[in-house]
């Protein structure tokens, strides 16, 4: 059989296969001694689970905890404010990806900045920033870079390509974050709270496109050090269902391992060329604040010192505020991300906090747990 593009879409969304995997999960779950709480770290998985209604297919013993893997949702207000302030500088064009448009900081969203006259451009690809910089030599073009390991190499490639072309007016505000550190934080911080079977993270579905770049190896510590199984799973509904089945089997067979379900795209080592390009321009930050979760050590990247002259945070240091901004008091995103509460338990869910006017991080992008619940509902059969 020859593989077609249609196979890559349709066979991983095949209704019969989804049903069959659900049946196998039900059978396998009978052997579980207690409920299993699975955190799908990545917002993409949250989206798949809610959009395809996969929760409805699973036995009660399998619970999902919706993780912090949405780069837009976790962006703290302080950083959005930076973007907002930079966008309003004369002779600055702020370029960022479409997802950032409505994320509210303390002063407003970039959409608001644009309506107030700031030159904000939402692009499909970082390479569009390069084009804009070349077309506007008299302006400073600032690329507000967001994203996890998946998206980081594209910013690295942009920086390299701009350097090769001798483009001098393209600066970067780097907000790239990394997955393993926040997973570790979520397990470690659990001890501060009331521990029970209800909120314990028993296993992870590993973000897959992150692993296409960084490799599955980045999750090794979770089974090895923390005894938490990880299955790196693709984003199609069949992938997620198979990933859940693999996790349940680990529990019934008493294993705690790192496995890859998404073998067609993920290897243990990842894309080494991409990793090399990341290392050529970025290094770890000491501390980075995540919206709803607070400061997490080594969980983000910054430009190497050699690129200080292109680092918007340094070049514009004088005008960028550093003081901390509190999350909204009624928002319980932190608890939701830690698996201690469901979106519907929040007082402001769907009332004061909606996707068009989000108060907290989980409502910001369609990948946030609250936004996904709001959008798709949680309909049981």
């Amino acid at each position, binding site marked *: 059989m020859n593989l077609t593009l249609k196979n890559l879409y349709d066979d991983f969304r095949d209704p019969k*296969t989804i049903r069959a995997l659900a049946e196998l999960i039900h059978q396998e779950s009978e052997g579980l001694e207690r409920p299993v709480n699975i955190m799908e770290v990545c917002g993409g998985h949250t989206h798949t689970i809610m959009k395809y209604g996969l929760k409805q297919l699973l036995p009660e013993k399998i619970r999902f905890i919706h993780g912090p893997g949405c780069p837009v949702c976790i962006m703290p207000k302080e950083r959005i404010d930076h973007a907002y302030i930079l966008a309003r500088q004369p002779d600055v064009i702020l370029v960022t990806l479409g997802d950032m448009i409505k994320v509210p900081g303390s002063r407003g969203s970039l959409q608001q900045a644009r309506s107030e006259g700031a030159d904000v451009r939402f692009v499909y690809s970082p390479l569009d920033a390069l084009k804009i910089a070349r077309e506007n030599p008299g302006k400073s073009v600032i690329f507000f870079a967001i994203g996890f390991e998946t998206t980081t190499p594209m910013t690295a*490639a942009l920086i390299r390509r701009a350097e090769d072309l001798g483009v001098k007016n393209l600066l970067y505000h780097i907000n790239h974050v990394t997955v393993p550190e926040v997973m570790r934080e979520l397990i470690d911080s659990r001890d501060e709270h009331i521990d029970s079977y209800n909120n314990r993270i028993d296993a992870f579905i590993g*973000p897959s*496109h992150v692993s296409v770049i960084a490799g599955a190896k980045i999750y090794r510590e979770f089974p090895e050090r923390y005894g938490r199984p990880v299955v790196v799973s693709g984003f199609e509904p069949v992938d997620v269902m198979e990933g859940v089945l693999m996790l349940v089997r680990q529990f019934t067979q008493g294993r705690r391992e790192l496995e890859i379900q998404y073998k067609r795209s993920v290897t243990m080592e990842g894309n080494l060329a991409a990793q090399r390009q990341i290392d050529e321009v970025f290094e770890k930050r000491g501390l980075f604040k995540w919206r709803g979760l607070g400061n997490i050590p080594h969980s983000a990247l910054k430009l190497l010192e050699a690129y200080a002259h292109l680092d918007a945070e340094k070049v514009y240091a004088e005008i960028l505020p550093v003081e901390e901004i509190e999350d909204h008091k009624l928002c319980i995103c932190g608890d939701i991300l830690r698996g201690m509460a469901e979106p519907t338990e929040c007082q402001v869910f769907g009332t004061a906090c909606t996707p068009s006017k989000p108060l907290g991080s989980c409502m910001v992008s369609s990948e946030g747990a609250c936004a996904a619940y709001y959008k798709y509902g949680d309909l049981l059969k």
Partner: protein
Amino acid sequence: MCLSIPSKVVKIDKEKATAVVDTMGVQREVGIDFIENEVKIGDYVLIHIGFAMNIISEEEALASIETYKEILALMDKEERQKAILEGDRCDGGGSA
């Protein structure tokens, strides 16, 4: 989710480090900065914000699809057997 989708490589420009990829009849130029030494025309790649991230393993994709077929065949068989068993029980019930 780091939205990323499978596409087919239809043209490669090594000089510019770009390729043209096709996603169900829609074509776009993408950067191949991370796969430029390996990529060939006809390969399937994952596209993320204007770049190809990797080359999808055809072998592994087919292996997964094969596994799902086997699961379905197995379940069909189980279901048929269950239906036959249930049929038997019904008959038995009638005669008792």
